């Protein structure tokens, strides 16, 4: 989806403002939103691509206005409701529906350190042939999917070269929609800054983008 989240290359967003001695969370509720997102993820009712997609579906004006954890809250509610863990009426009332049963949380405090260290890799140990070799020239496809994609707009149609093959990973475009993992190679692709932005860029500068094989075509 060509949404406002796909910001690479936009201008006029203002200066980067660094906050000195910034706290991890600016308000206690931000930490609770973060923690609820991680803890409910342990139900494995969604995946990271679906979670990102929910935040991308926030209307553009809201997306730009809302703080980071406001977006996480909004995305989390959509995941919880959309995947059937809670009903929207329950979110509105803050109370479980009458007669609903009580579940057992899949993540306890004791399990937090091990769950964190284990992580949730989206690499897949399956034999999938690599279409491209290191050093090979490739072009990022011109595609405009209406769902979730990790091919940024600023790279589409641009020429690059395979810098590295990272191995086989779950494909976000299908995974976000629960349409399967479609495992395939992910490559680090080097794009010259001048290819992306024109002659005003410095001749040796470059942007490296990690791209799934389905996003690339041979030249």
């Amino acid at each position: 989806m060509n949404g406002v989240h796909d910001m690479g290359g936009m201008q006029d967003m203002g200066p980067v403002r660094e906050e000195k001695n910034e706290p991890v969370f600016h308000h206690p509720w931000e930490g609770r939103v973060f923690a609820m997102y991680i803890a409910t993820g342990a139900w494995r009712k969604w995946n990271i691509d679906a979670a990102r997609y929910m935040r991308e579906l926030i209307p553009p004006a809201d997306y730009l206005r809302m703080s980071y954890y406001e977006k996480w809250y909004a995305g989390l509610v959509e995941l919880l409701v959309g995947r059937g863990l809670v009903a929207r009426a329950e979110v509105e009332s803050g109370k479980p529906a009458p007669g609903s049963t009580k579940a057992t949380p899949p993540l306890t405090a004791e399990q937090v350190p091990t769950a964190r260290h284990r992580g949730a890799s989206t690499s897949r140990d399956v034999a999938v042939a690599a279409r491209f070799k290191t050093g090979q020239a490739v072009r990022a496809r011109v595609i405009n999917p209406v769902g979730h994609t990790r091919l940024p707009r600023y790279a589409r149609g641009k020429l690059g070269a395979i810098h590295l093959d990272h191995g086989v990973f779950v494909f976000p475009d299908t995974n976000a929609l629960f349409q399967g993992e479609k495992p395939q190679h992910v490559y680090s692709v080097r794009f010259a800054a001048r290819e992306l932005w024109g002659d005003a860029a410095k001749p040796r500068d470059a942007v490296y983008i990690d791209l799934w094989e389905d996003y690339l075509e041979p030249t």
Partner: protein
Amino acid sequence: MALRVKSLESLLVEKGLVDRAALDALVDTYENKVGPRNGAQVVARAWADPAYKQRLLADADKALGELGFGGQQGEHMVVVENTPTVHNMIVCTLCSCYPWPVLGLPPVWYKSAPYRSRSVIDPRGVLREFGLELADNVEVRVWDSTAELRYLVLPERPAGTEGLSEAELAPLVTRDSLIGVANVQPRRQGGAA
């Protein structure tokens, strides 16, 4: 927001979907236990131990594992090295991808529209706002974290630190230098550069 979030939390707890103590543990982990000190420790080790540096650049997951770092949002790490002629910086233009095990959670500016939009088209301008002016002969490499690889910059070891131990080096390494929007200064107090 505070009220809505509190209401959602009590709903999830009442339904048995989350354990309140687990939420407390998660907040405590990222507020107090995981942060850029981890990444600084990695860099100090790499500066002090050339063999470790080679392992770190060749297989970051394994080398970070030696120091106990890895896991959530750092399952697949890549470390990129700054040199006198190459400067690396990290961004996630599409969202907020960031190497949690070594840097903790990202600061607001990293997740903000100004940084996400401009770091790929005008990295030198962004770096200038951070007070870093790069010479024309330095190659700027911007790493856009679009997939599940997470990046960490290995900054240049500043001159004048030859005699320092690993434990003395680590406090010099700032979060910003690990993202690539700053270099490491020889002395925090701003001694001779």
